């Protein structure tokens, strides 16, 4: 053991989420063996039931805080992690489950569950950064595989990840995609959405759904008249914005 190089210890944790973002790590098929050679995967329940205790050099956290237990657990994770990186719309913006932030959770509980008293939950779904300090937030629903590898690589090298926070429009233009709003009149959240997906949807003639949440420079009120012009009524606009990053876009609307 003495001769072995000490590898950085990687951990992956899950809060309220669908598992899609941590699955993205397993989807990195071409890089997975190299990654396993560079880090010691110490805690990753989706991949292995062999769990080693902390401290960890890099913890990837998926999911939002929706229970008092998770609010406590994230503090424990933070305390055991040298670097904590949140991955995905749930962990960075509260996820689609943040729709509860605009509704009556008690009413949901009574309506949905036969035994509402079994359910213990908070009234809100909040990002991890609302509870503990976060070293980097990687956006997306789910996150982009290429960006995940970049973030891990950057932390291994001790540098800043190359994850631009400009709009999806940059990616459409770089890719040579014809603007679906200007040329087809398709409602699109690209101008206000954080880049990272490579402008996937517009490349298939769909408007951007805003999976990556608001970009670093957003003027959402200026986009609303366009969505209305392109056929969305007031309710449609609300539904369009109230998806994976509902709380983050709602905050932008209020600015």
């Amino acid at each position: 053991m003495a001769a072995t190089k000490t590898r950085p210890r990687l951990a992956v944790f899950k809060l309220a989420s669908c598992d899609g973002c941590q699955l993205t790590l397993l989807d990195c098929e071409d890089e997975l063996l190299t990654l396993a050679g560079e880090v010691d995967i110490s805690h990753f329940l989706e991949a292995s039931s062999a769990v080693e205790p902390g401290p960890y050099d890099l913890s990837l956290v998926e999911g939002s805080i929706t229970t008092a237990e998770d609010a406590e657990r994230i503090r424990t994770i933070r305390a055991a992690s040298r670097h904590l990186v949140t991955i995905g719309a749930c962990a960075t913006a509260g996820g689609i489950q943040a729709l509860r932030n605009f509704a009556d959770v008690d009413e949901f509980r009574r309506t949905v569950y036969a035994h509402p008293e079994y359910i213990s939950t908070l009234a809100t779904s909040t990002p991890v950064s609302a509870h503990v300090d976060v070293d980097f937030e990687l956006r997306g629903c789910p996150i982009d595989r290429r960006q995940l590898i970049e973030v891990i690589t950057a932390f291994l090298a001790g540098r800043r990840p190359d994850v631009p926070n400009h709009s999806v429009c940059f990616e459409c233009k770089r890719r040579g995609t014809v603007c679906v709003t200007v040329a087809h009149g398709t409602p699109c959240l690209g101008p206000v959405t954080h880049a990272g997906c490579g402008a996937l949807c517009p490349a298939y003639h769909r408007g951007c759904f805003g999976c990556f949440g608001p970009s670093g420079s957003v003027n959402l009120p200026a986009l609303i008249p366009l969505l209305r012009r392109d056929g969305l009524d007031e309710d449609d606009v609300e539904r369009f914005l109230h998806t994976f990053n509902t709380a983050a876009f709602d905050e932008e609307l209020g600015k």
Partner: protein
Amino acid sequence: MSAAPAALDRDGLSALVAVLVADGRTVVGPTVRDGAIVLSELDSADALPYGWGVELEAGRYRLVPREDGAAFAHSAGPQSWKNFLHPSRERLWSADRTAEGEVTFTAHEPAAPAYAFLGVRPCDLRAIAIQDRVLIGGRYEDTGYGTRRRGALLIAAECTEPGATCFCISTGGGPAADPGYDLALTEVVDEDGHRFLVRVGSEEGARLLERVPHHGADLATEATARASVDAARDRMGRSLPPVDLRSLMGASLDAERWNDVAERCLTCGNCTMVCPTCFCTTTEEVTDLTGDHTERWQRWDSCFDLDFSYLHGGSVRRSPRSRYRQWLTHKLSTWHDQFDTTGCVGCGRCIAWCPVGIDITEEVAALDAERGTESD
């Protein structure tokens, strides 16, 4: 260079493209894709947008059929030639570290297909000349751009159908092609048929023309071609106020109008990406997981990106107001100080492809009106 113009019919144009393809050139020209006339690699002249035109407005682009079957009667497409000469992403160099810790660097030769650009509008010819000045006309040359540019053959298509967002006259241009092309075509469609008046602009252009079936242009073709280009001068959909733009921009640093445009601006960066002269780039360093291999890539950047003005401690131009002002002031004023030309050729792309339809001509007019009000 022959002084007398020649004429090609449609078959002649097809033969021209075939010769270029046979020569191993990558022929790029307009073609219909995804509801727009885009620039793309062409296998043959059949891919040209025969019978298609466009209807333009601020923030709006629609493809419309044309009865005359013309190939080059359109403007302000979603890309410009910079997409090919100054691509959005390019690897500059890479470095590898050996097990012994030794680092070796490799400079990457630029990807440089021998381009032939077919259907370059006069405004875009001027834009290429501006990027030549910026990227290879100074002390430090962008070698990738230089390699691609020097190998590129330019076949212009004069403008006979300006769009509603066009204003090249206001920037000192016009619908006729300035020198700089190898061949210049002027499309003529009338009762005498569909043909292209050809003027030769270089020896290479002359040699190329010799290899395809053509004939001397008759007087009627020449007269019609000239008349339709002349008529296009008066059909520009927009114009800039006829004032000295450099002094206007200099006098407008504190204008209220910047607040007004900042309310509407999405800061999405589309205007800079479609602009045929905007040239700004950033570099990214990419390492692999092992840390033994790294690459430096150059990629398009934009003054609308917050990180563009990032210095230690934060971004200098944080407000949308300051970023829009930076873009417009550079384009119309400080570009002269830097490169002795304007940065705007009046192609209208920034107007058409701005999702919210911010109109550079309207903004300049408003700044001019505000200055007028203040000096009254």
